[in-house]
């Protein structure tokens, strides 16, 4: 409290805006202010908040899960779809309440009030108004909602934007505390939720209380991959086994680039390749001391490699111009053969788009590379669920229970009746069975294929691409080949909230923008070093001090 009073240097600073002076007497009246509770979860508090795990009687996958190190395992793969999906929930879970939900959507927004929404509302027994918002602008939309205090009843907040949204603080003040409903054995009322992995629930815990429902939980939170056009590389006689190190990768540049035909070997790869140089994702702990990515030698080596790539002529000019939006088009058209990307891209829709452009289309990804091509590959795991949905604190306990019952329906496992409904809609309307697998009708492509409900709650990820078995097989094989490389980075899955200025320091916009310019060949490595040293002397030092004092020293580095 005293520190806050001291921080009111405003009046002594001598500023003289009439309004502020008029407000001065009020200042002493409202001493509380917004004291943010910052820091991470305690291990005992976390344990008390987490739901119990009850494995469900799931289907036996066609491609069994392979376990790796560090609690990681590949997602189970399915090549078939049950002919008669079994129900896991009896009757509509809702009691007729009316709610609104906001989710991010990367793609075409379905028509409001469409046949699928209506069918889902009937199945769910609630009147749920879905408001999917443009995923590319989601991080600017949510803050306006927050400021206006108009958060919907149910909202999805992607974890990678937690610093932007100040999610920890939002949870404390705006979101419903789900601990009494879900912690420990309480979750057993919702068997499908209880079947979600415990690690995924951890991403929804803030200040020792459970707020978030994990979506798309996975035991293979891979960091993404360096993708390639497997069909075209194989026609050059290139296979994964030949590419072990960044040097090997660079050698492909000369062989594959044919600028006269408009073909370049590379699109952007930085985000998915720099950890292969041995650089940490953000932090590493060295003799109990924090070392930031920007301070490491490996980071500079990665930068140097990427700068050479950008200036080598092996990268597509549009990629160098920063046009990420058309990356997919370039890849499908065979204008670029190697491109970094999130693993979510390895799916049926991608396959269909690719085949539409080139019948031989086949996506592949290099195995995790290592700097020297010899040592054990390492890939740092991402959050076990990067999509978390929250309920509004204004909801009454029975409304929360109603929505959790809906969440339980949505989290039904692969192949169940509820899963079929949520992901493929009504048979005969939104999908038909073609060779036994659900295949979208036009109505389904319009309104169901654009993922909406699973952003509120969904079962653990499986690899399933009805009608595109080659995708399922390729992706499962890649996961199996790389699952051993997965390692938890420091502070993995630890939710800590930080003050705004520290969050700004962590975002390190100026450095990150210079990095982008560097791997696009517009700025030199030395420019990045200069930006880093500016950052380090101010923001970076404060960030490290804060992280050390408030997270590392108090809660450890997780792992």
């Amino acid at each position, binding site marked *: 409290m005293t520190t806050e009073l001291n*921080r009111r240097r405003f009046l002594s600073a001598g*500023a003289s805006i*009439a309004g*502020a002076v008029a407000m001065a007497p009020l200042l002493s009246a*409202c001493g509380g202010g*917004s004291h943010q509770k910052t820091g991470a979860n305690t291990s005992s508090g976390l344990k008390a908040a987490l739901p119990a795990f009850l494995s469900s009687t799931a289907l036996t996958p066609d491609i069994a899960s392979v376990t790796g190190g560090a609690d990681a395992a590949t997602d189970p793969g399915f090549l078939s779809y049950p002919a008669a999906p079994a129900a896991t929930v009896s009757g509509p879970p809702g009691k007729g309440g009316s709610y609104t939900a906001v989710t991010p959507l990367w793609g075409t927004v379905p028509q409001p009030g469409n046949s699928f929404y209506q069918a889902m509302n009937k199945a769910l027994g609630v009147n749920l108004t879905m408001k999917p918002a443009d995923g590319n602008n989601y991080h600017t939309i949510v*803050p306006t909602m927050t400021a206006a205090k108009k958060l919907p009843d149910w909202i999805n907040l992607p974890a990678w934007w937690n610093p932007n949204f100040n999610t920890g603080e939002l949870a404390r003040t705006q979101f419903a505390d789900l601990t009494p409903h879900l912690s420990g054995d309480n979750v057993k009322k919702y068997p499908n939720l209880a079947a979600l992995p415990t690690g995924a629930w951890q991403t929804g815990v803030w200040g020792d209380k459970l707020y978030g429902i994990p979506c798309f939980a996975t035991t293979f939170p891979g960091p993404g991959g360096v993708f390639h056009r497997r069909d075209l590389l194989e026609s050059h006689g290139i296979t994964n086994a030949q590419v072990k190190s960044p040097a090997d990768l660079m050698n492909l540049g000369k062989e594959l680039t044919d600028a006269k035909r408009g073909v370049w070997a590379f699109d952007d790869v930085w985000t998915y390749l720099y950890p292969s140089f041995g650089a940490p994702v953000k932090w590493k702990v060295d003799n109990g001391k924090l070392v930031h990515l920007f301070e490491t030698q490996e980071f500079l080596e990665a930068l140097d490699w990427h700068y050479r790539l950008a200036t080598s002529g092996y990268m597509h000019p549009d990629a160098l111009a*920063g046009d990420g939006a058309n990356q997919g088009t370039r890849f499908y058209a065979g204008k670029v053969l190697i491109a970094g990307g999130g693993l979510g891209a390895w799916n049926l829709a991608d396959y269909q788009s690719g085949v539409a452009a080139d019948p031989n289309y086949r996506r592949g990804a290099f195995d995790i590379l290592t700097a020297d091509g010899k040592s054990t590959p390492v890939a740092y795991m991402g959050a076990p669920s990067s999509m978390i949905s929250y309920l509004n604190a204004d909801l009454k306990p029975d409304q929360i229970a109603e929505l959790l019952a809906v969440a339980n329906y949505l989290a039904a496992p692969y192949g169940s009746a509820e899963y079929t409904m949520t992901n493929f809609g009504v048979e005969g309307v939104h999908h038909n069975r073609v060779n036994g697998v659900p295949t979208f009708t036009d109505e389904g492509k319009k309104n169901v294929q654009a993922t909406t409900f699973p952003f509120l709650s969904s079962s653990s990820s499986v690899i399933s691409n009805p009608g595109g078995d080659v995708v399922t097989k390729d992706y499962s094989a890649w996961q199996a080949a790389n699952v051993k490389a997965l390692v938890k980075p420091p502070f993995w899955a630890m939710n800590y909230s930080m003050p705004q200025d520290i969050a700004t320091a962590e975002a390190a916009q100026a450095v990150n*923008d210079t990095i982008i310019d560097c791997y696009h060949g517009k700025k030199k490595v030395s420019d990045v070093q200069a930006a880093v040293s500016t950052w380090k002397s101010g923001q970076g030092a404060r960030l490290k001090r804060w992280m050390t004092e408030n997270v590392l020293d108090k809660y450890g580095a997780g792992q």
Partner: protein
Amino acid sequence: MSTARSERRASPTRLSRRIRLRRDKSLLLMTIPAVVLLLVFNYAPLFGLVTAFQSYDPLVGVWHSDWVGLDQFQALFGDPLFWESMKNTLYLSCVQLVLFFPIPIALALLLNSVLSERMRNFIQSVLYLPHFFSWVLALTIFQQMLGGAGLLNQFLRQHGIGTWDIMTDPHTFALLVTSQAIWKEAGWGIIVFLAALSAINTELYEAAAADGAGRWRRMWHITLPGLRGVVMLMLVLRLGNALSVGFEQFLIQRTAVGHDAADVLDTFSFYYGIAAGNYSYGAAAGLFKSLVSLLLLWGANRLAHAFGEDGLYRK
């Protein structure tokens, strides 16, 4: 003019307030809606500027947020992105001043020399039109003409010349936005200059012509001096607005060219203030911009006075 002014109450003596109030009651009543709207949406936000001295937290509101003094400004001045957007703003302002500003004057002179009235009217109507387009529309038109999939590149591709996507090139962005601004606003800009031209006494030209002054001499000695006042005024306004180079235009194109080239002070406030949930930071940037703008306006006006012109207000 004096008749218009004294038309109503001829008596020059001051009436008592009460009598005037009764007399002007309905007039005052008429101004109330506008005054209320301005108080709410223009004056109340002025007091909202105190958030710039806070660490404003929307969850607790302006009354309960912590005061941080000048911390926001300190952070702002240490932020390379802020200086980047400042640099962009000033640079674009200069480019626009040099490339945009003379065009409406030249167009007005040119149009004024067209003899056929019908032709003049037609040209004027066409030139004013883009002013009424929204930025979304104007930029969509630009995209369809010059963009990667637009007409220009369509032509280049068909003729085997490499493509040139000027809409996403950060290096030429200053030229791009200036040409957009010229396309949309230069036509409208001629309206004041045309009025000033029409106010020049025709007899002056006649007399000069009689004295043997040619076309160019007449322009130099009569037309241009006649435009001087309004040119100075527009210049004052432009300089006073040097930090406002447009907002929607940059907001829409930011993703295409990247923030490095497209962030100006106004978009900085939006992206690093509202969109990042860092309201006080954005408010501080806004306040800084307003203060500098007022200074610039004042300075430009002083400059106009020094040249013996009225500027925005007289001495």
